[in-house]
């Protein structure tokens, strides 16, 4: 079954390419069919006994194997589900674009690679699928040309650095223990020395941190996410980045085990606390950088960095509740961030811009889009009765319970930023005066709406019934050695308090009734057109009459000086250094034969000299 999933995924990618050379319609439906089949197969594996199967015996002396556990199932099914939605969304989005076949091929390849990552049963298969996903991601990021090229290059160079680190860690584990199977490694690493474990952890952390865009490895993400084609931005943000999260969980809790992971160092100098602190930085700074962006997709991209910080904070904090919160937030983020990228992608497709200062007033032109974006933003902020509320609640809860006010404050401040940029996004795109040039924006097709509507329904549904997902997550955390949480369909209870959607619903209902009553009793409202702005007697200017530019100017004045990305400067310096090095080294080849002959003689003389008595080593 596991093999079949991968065969279908990779075979489907190839076949859809060749189908597309023949007819694009069949290719589209074929690609969709492939991923619906994969989603079906993956769902069928729900709560199956953990099992391992070797799918490729003897690859360079290893048996490559696949493995399904509750953890990998949860990630795999998310990958499959989001992939299906993204493929539906792509139908319309990619129409009229050149290189469509290449796009489908690569998209399916990335998704297949991610299935491989989640299902692999040993570190080598993990690495192989990881690399396949990485290089196809590189091609997809570069797909849109122009500014996408440097973005793609930046991504791939950082990704190659990460892979190199992973390769060294993997092979070092192999040379120490002679195995790479995930299930065997855990028993071996228990006996390893602390220094060695930290060495391995650091290497893996570089690799997964790059993918997960944890500060200081985040610099590739904002340009990559904003320049990639919208359907792929959704995949990138919702899934691919979270493969890093999966890797971290794998290394920290499965291979090393909770005890080792939490036992490295003490107090604030312990390994997991340092990573949590990094995650805290990753929450706060990018969330406010997102506030300052004028580019809608860049806002979302920085928001992805910030949200990834929440997830990593949950994963690295080290309690069962935190881990559950991290995983839950990963699932939620996959939903609302894919949705938001899709909706902004649609806006961009309709208006050919994603500049928040240009857009406005689209609410009447595209009401459905407005509603789904609003739901997505609500989830992102974590408004009650959306899924984001629960994961964040759990995270705050555990941070406070464990006595970590700083991290809790960081998480809270991050949420302020989230509120600010989410509001700006909604306001600048949908509210205000409708600019002349967007008058004739039309509604978009069913296949574009469908995935967004499904996602927004899911956001609300899991916000009301978090128990569906929490139950699954509970199985995962329990399998990793944590005590089970007390989960109900309506919420979750812990020693210090319970959250229950029933109560929230009740409260909301009361408030709703009150508000409704208030509005009813107030003066009657009249409906005016979007252009009918009140100008206190002055003539209404034609064109633009809403103030979207410099939206948060006072705030911006305060925070901008603190948000300069020094890390990016540092990387720029490194790249410059390599460039200088390269130029220097290139000068070895002077172009004069005389010099070259001297090189030959010099080498000869040097080696002879060593032999003739002068032994420098």
């Amino acid at each position, binding site marked *: 079954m596991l093999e079949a999933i991968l065969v279908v995924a990779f075979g489907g990618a190839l076949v859809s390419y060749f189908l597309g050379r023949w007819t694009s319609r069949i290719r589209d439906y074929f690609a969709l069919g492939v991923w619906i089949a994969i989603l079906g197969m993956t769902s069928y594996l729900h709560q199956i006994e953990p099992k391992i199967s070797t799918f490729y015996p003897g690859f360079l002396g290893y048996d490559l194997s696949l493995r399904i556990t509750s953890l990998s199932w949860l990630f795999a099914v998310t990958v499959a589900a989001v992939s299906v939605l993204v493929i539906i969304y792509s139908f319309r989005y990619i129409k009229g674009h050149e290189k469509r076949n290449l796009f489908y091929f690569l998209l399916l390849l990335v998704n297949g690679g991610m299935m491989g990552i989640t299902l692999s049963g040993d570190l080598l298969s993990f690495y192989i699928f990881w690399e396949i996903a990485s290089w196809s991601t590189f091609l997809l990021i570069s797909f849109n040309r122009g500014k996408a090229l440097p973005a793609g290059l930046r991504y791939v160079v950082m990704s190659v650095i990460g892979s190199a680190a992973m390769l060294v860690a993997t092979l070092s584990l192999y040379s120490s223990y002679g195995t790479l199977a995930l299930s065997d490694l855990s028993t071996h690493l228990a006996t390893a020395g602390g220094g060695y474990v930290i060495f391995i952890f650091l290497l893996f952390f570089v690799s997964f941190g790059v993918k997960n865009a944890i500060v200081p490895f985040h610099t590739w993400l904002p340009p990559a996410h904003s320049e990639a084609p919208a359907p792929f931005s959704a995949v990138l943000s919702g899934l691919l980045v979270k493969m890093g999260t999966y890797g971290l969980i794998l290394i920290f809790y499965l291979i090393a085990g909770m005890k080792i992971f939490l036992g490295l160092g003490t107090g604030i100098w312990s390994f997991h606390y340092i990573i949590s602190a990094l995650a805290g930085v990753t929450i706060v700074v990018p969330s406010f950088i997102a506030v300052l962006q004028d580019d809608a997709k860049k806002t979302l991209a920085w928001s992805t960095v910030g949200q990834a910080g929440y997830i990593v904070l949950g994963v690295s904090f080290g309690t069962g509740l935190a881990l559950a919160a991290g995983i839950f937030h990963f699932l939620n983020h996959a939903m609302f961030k894919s949705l938001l990228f899709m909706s902004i992608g649609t806006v961009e497709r309709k208006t050919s811009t994603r500049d928040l200062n240009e857009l406005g007033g689209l609410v009447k032109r595209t009401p459905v889009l407005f509603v789904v974006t609003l739901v997505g933003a609500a989830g992102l902020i974590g408004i009650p009765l959306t899924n984001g509320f629960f994961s964040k609640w759990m995270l705050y809860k555990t941070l406070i319970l464990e006595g970590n006010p700083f991290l809790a404050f960081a998480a809270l401040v991050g949420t302020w930023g989230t509120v600010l940029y989410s509001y700006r996004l909604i306001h600048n795109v949908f509210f205000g005066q409708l600019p002349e040039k967007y008058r004739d924006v039309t509604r978009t097709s069913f296949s574009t709406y469908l995935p967004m509507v499904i996602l927004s329904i899911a956001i609300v549904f899991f916000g009301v019934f978090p128990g569906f997902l929490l139950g699954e997550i509970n199985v995962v955390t329990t399998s990793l050695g944590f005590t089970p949480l007390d989960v109900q369909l309506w919420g979750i209870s812990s020693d210090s308090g319970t959250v229950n959607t029933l109560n929230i619903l009740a409260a909301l209902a009361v408030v709703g009734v009150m508000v409704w009553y208030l509005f009813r009793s107030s003066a009657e409202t009249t409906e005016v057109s979007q252009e009918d702005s009140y100008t206190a007697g002055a003539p209404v200017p034609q064109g633009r009459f809403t103030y979207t530019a410099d939206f948060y100017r006072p705030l911006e004045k305060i925070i901008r000086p603190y948000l300069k990305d020094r890390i990016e400067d540092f990387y720029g310096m490194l790249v410059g250094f390599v460039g200088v090095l390269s130029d220097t080294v290139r000068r070895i080849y002077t172009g004069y034969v005389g010099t070259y002959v*001297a090189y030959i*003689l*010099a080498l*000869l*003389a040097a080696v*002879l*000299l060593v*032999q*003739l008595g002068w032994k420098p080593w």
Partner: protein
Amino acid sequence: MRDILSFRGFVALFLLGIIVAGISSAVGQIPFGQPDSEVGQLYLENGLQDTGAPNLVTSVVAGYRALDTLGEVVVLFVAATGLSAVLATSKRRVERELEDASLVLKTGCRIFFPLILLFGAYLFIHGHLTPGGGFQGGAVIGSAFLLVYLGCSGRRVSADAAGAIESLSGFGFVFLGLLGLLVGGSYFLSNFLPKGDLYELISAGIFPLIYILIGLKVGSEFAGIVDSMIEESK
């Protein structure tokens, strides 16, 4: 002198000094003058018997190390082909006035040309008996053609004919080797013909044949090289 005293000169001298010291330290250990070389000794003792060629150099060149010889023939072939290819494709041709050769050269060329050819042929046909051989004979023949170009301006070797001879004789060499593989005990280039009587012209099996082929090949190759260089300078 100033060049040597410069920094670069000093570095070069220094490097060369080390290299010379290194090589001489190795040369110093070679037991010169003593018949230490096992292989060389065996060639001396068994050469005549094994190959039937009184010229031991020939028995090594055409017998024991025939593959090297084939290789050297190829090297020359490549060099000639490469030279003509590069000269043919390079675009720069300088037009030059040619001066007629003097009377002495013209007359001498007519008289000596056949004699040199004959001498060259002698050298390679007789190579297994007396000093000489295919390469030497071929070089002599090549010099005859050089003389023609110098003395009798206007006369030229037919490039096609030279190429054909070159090609055929080279092929003949390999073909002889393959015949040896087929006939003589499944060894490439083995001496499958009867050795004949010592000191006879027709003796030592395939050696005279090899030398004749080499002689023809080298001769036509040199002629071709001379031709393509003259062509270039015209």
